[in-house]
């Protein structure tokens, strides 16, 4: 089975995010960019499936600017076999919306015919949490979101999902789109031999036009603001006062 893993180049999770002076978005000039951590988990899961003999080939795909190549190389250094870059923007500040991404992925899938798509449940930049679901709808494939355990068995997969009430286990028909959650696995470091090999692995570049998808934005960002600073807390004298405040002021008990 072939697995397709879409990976996104996003602002590194360690970077302190700053809003651009004109409020049009987050400042991405000269900041460290890395692979979306949820996508890293998806890549790791694909590699584990390959190591377990359930997968023959792992294809990673990134949709973004030329520099997204770096993210693909990181995935190749982790252990993916092949990469596809869909060059869909020139400026790092241009956001390609989930629907456009899903359409591009659909086009890539038509060429690649994977048996499974593993994606991060969301990207940590704008937290849309939509691409996987949209892709499933466009393809008419089954979907399992927020996976914390995945077991592929022939033409179906059993997926444990992290939902608000606890864990839900579902069985989906293959081919499927599975979006992965934080607790699925702990991604590995790229090993030195794999880092050195990554350069020799194939990386194909396509454009959005090649795939016949219009990536023009449908949404407009009205304003971006930093969240309000957290107000200082208060000290309470004793448990009785704490309980009273939780009851009367916070209304949580």
């Amino acid at each position, binding site marked *: 089975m072939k697995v397709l893993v879409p990976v996104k180049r996003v602002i590194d999770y360690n970077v302190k995010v700053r809003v651009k002076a004109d409020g049009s978005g987050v400042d991405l000039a000269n900041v460290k960019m*890395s692979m979306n951590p949820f996508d890293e988990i998806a890549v790791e899961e694909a590699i584990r499936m390959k190591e377990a003999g359930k997968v023959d080939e792992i294809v990673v795909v990134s949709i973004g600017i030329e520099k997204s*190549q*770096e993210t693909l*190389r*990181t995935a190749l*250094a982790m252990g993916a076999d092949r990469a596809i870059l869909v060059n869909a923007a020139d400026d790092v500040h241009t956001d390609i919306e989930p629907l456009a991404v899903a359409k591009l992925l659909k086009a890539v899938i038509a060429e690649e015919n994977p048996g499974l798509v593993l994606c991060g449940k969301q990207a940590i930049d704008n937290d849309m949490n939509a691409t996987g679901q949209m892709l499933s709808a466009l393809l008419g494939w089954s979907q399992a979101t927020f996976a914390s355990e995945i077991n592929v068995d022939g033409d179906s997969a059993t997926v444990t999902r992290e939902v608000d009430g606890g864990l839900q286990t579902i069985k989906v028909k293959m081919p499927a789109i599975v979006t992965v959650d934080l607790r699925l696995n702990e991604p590995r*470091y*790229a*090993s*030195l*031999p*794999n*880092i*050195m090999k*990554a*350069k020799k692995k194939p990386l194909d570049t396509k454009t959005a036009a090649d795939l016949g998808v219009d990536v023009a934005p449908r949404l407009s960002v009205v304003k971006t603001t930093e969240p309000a600073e957290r107000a200082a807390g208060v000290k309470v004298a004793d448990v009785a006062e704490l309980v009273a405040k939780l009851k009367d002021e916070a209304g949580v008990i």
Partner: protein
Amino acid sequence: MHFGLTQEQEMIVDTVRSFVENEIYPHEQLVERCGEVPNEIAQNIKNKTKELGFYACNFPESVGGAGLTHMDFALVERELGRGSMALNHFFGRPQNILMACQGEQIERYLLPAVRGDRMDALAMTEPDAGSDVRGMNCSAVRDGDDWVLNGSKHFISGAEHADFFIVFVATGVDDTPRGPKKRITTFLVDRGTPGFDVRDGYNSVSHKGYKNCILTFDDCRLPKEQVLGEVDGGFAVMNEWLYATRLTVAAMSVGRARRCFDYALNYAAERKQFGQPIGKFQGVGFQIADMITEIDAADWLTLAAAWRLDQGLPANREIASAKLYATEMLARVTDTTLQIFGGMGLMDDFPIERFWRDARVERIWDGTSEIQRHIISRDLLRPLGA
């Protein structure tokens, strides 16, 4: 001229930095407090380093290393420099000098060291021979096909974990215009050889847990097969291979300075006095500016020296400049960071006081700042007859 890293180098830096942050930082406080690395942690770091293919990455592929360039390796050392020396000792980088192994020595010492099956330590310094290496007293005399060693070494790093030692001893004297100079021969000495003993050394304020040991040789008999390189050729072996450790000290100093600087920068932005972040006071802001300028300068000096080695260009002077400047820069950066933190900087709740203590030895070991200045000035003045 190109100042960027390749994608491979970026990934090497990312991997080593994540490794240090996740596998080294969490144990630092423990090692600092108990003065040694618990064996389980040591083995864990060693095993993970092997799995990642970074063990002995400073060795060529022909002997099982990763074949990194000097530049790649300087980047590895720079990132390791962020973490505790005691812990990252197990991110094994055996002494390059082992490449001088010949014949059976290759199977017995070089290859097991590269595989991480046996650890090595280098022994040169003596109580009466620090910078004056050729004034050493530890000596070996021939007895038939054997050599008999007598004397002692101190300040031997990594000795408590070493399975064998690369030991420099005097095997004769040359009369030179500058007085008598010892001839030096390098020996490979296994732990447990009769007449050879390893014991704990002194308690250093720098790099706690990265112990220094005392080695004693009391009629220690070694067959001639234990000679590394040529008899009386030890000084040449030293000069051929030991430049690498000086560059390592420079690179590690840059890494540690960057980690320390991050604390200074964040503290200057967050700590408020007189109603504003202290970084807004020019006195502190300018310290931040000076620190980053010096760190960048030391970084480039170090990488440029590594680059020269990769190009096969003479680099002795450049390495000396990098070692001199990077270690002195680290002293200033750690001291200034401590000043920005004020009293809290001295408390062991923050790692600043540790960085400050650890920085002190960097100007001393692997050639003092004075020796580096000597190398640099002789390189420039000797050709002019001065």
